């Protein structure tokens, strides 16, 4: 598909993906252990997730939100075991 510009807005967004609370998180578990060994004795839990910073061009904040949700559903998050959140970081007009 071609990048036909509808608007001249550039939108920066972040999609954050974490394992569902009830799902085992081996990474978080291992990291918590390492932090404890390093003497960070106040740490009671760590969950490890992923972040994706996405730049969209020629779109609007509303359209972007919808698009980002779809991206998470179809590719970035595995909704069987993960939850995701979408956050618009900034909008710039060029």
């Amino acid at each position: 598909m071609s990048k036909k510009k509808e608007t001249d807005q550039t939108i920066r967004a972040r999609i954050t993906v974490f394992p569902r609370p009830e799902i085992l998180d081996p990474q978080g578990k291992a990291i918590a252990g390492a932090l404890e060994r390093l003497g960070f004795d106040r740490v009671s839990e760590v969950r490890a997730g992923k972040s994706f910073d996405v730049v969209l061009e020629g779109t609007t904040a509303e359209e972007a939100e919808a698009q980002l949700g779809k991206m998470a559903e179809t590719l970035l998050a595995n909704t069987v075991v993960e939850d995701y959140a979408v956050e618009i970081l900034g909008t710039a007009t060029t």
Partner: protein
Amino acid sequence: MRCGVVTFPGSNCDHDVYHVLKHVLGQEVFFLWHGEENLKSCDLVVLPGGFSYGDYLRAGAMASLSPIMASVRRHADAGGLVLGICNGFQMLLESQLLPGAMRRNRTLRFECRDLHLRVERADLPFTRGYEAGQVLRMPVAHAEGNYVDSEANLDALEAAGRVVFRYSDPEGELRDEHNVNGSARAIAGITNEGGNVLGMMPHPERCAEEVLGNSDGLPLFATAVAGARAALETQAS
């Protein structure tokens, strides 16, 4: 001579290296434990391949903070031989005994196959058994072997002649498709200023016996062993 192979939780090539040093080269070999600082006065210390702590954060990151790494650093600073293979190389980077860092392979997949290496430095304790420009065939098996650093640092590394191995084609030409993991400047192995610390992604211990059809990795251990003995003697005198 005394060789030490460090076992971290999740190391899985420790026994392979042990086998080569002990049974193929007949050396005195000890397993060293990540949780201790004792190097059992070994002359050669090997950080083996594997998935220390599952490589759940960054490959080698958690292991590089183990108690034994402080001793490994002292050993290296004193000119002692340190060999980091695969996960061991990643630990050397994470503990900044060697410069740069590893990213995921550009294929974003684990790559297990034989690759060709061009020897860039044949004058190091680990590489005297090779000729400069010689092409070796060695197995790789990793998901994070994509070496990166800033252009400036890479230039400095090259200028100091600290690139030891590069991925090449069978004739020794640097061709992109042979740089499977996408390493900057096809780097497969590097050394420190002193030349006594070597980090490499390919597995010389997996090609150190003819019975497995390839012994290109054996000279690396053989000369390291000899080199360590030499270092020991100079220290004594």
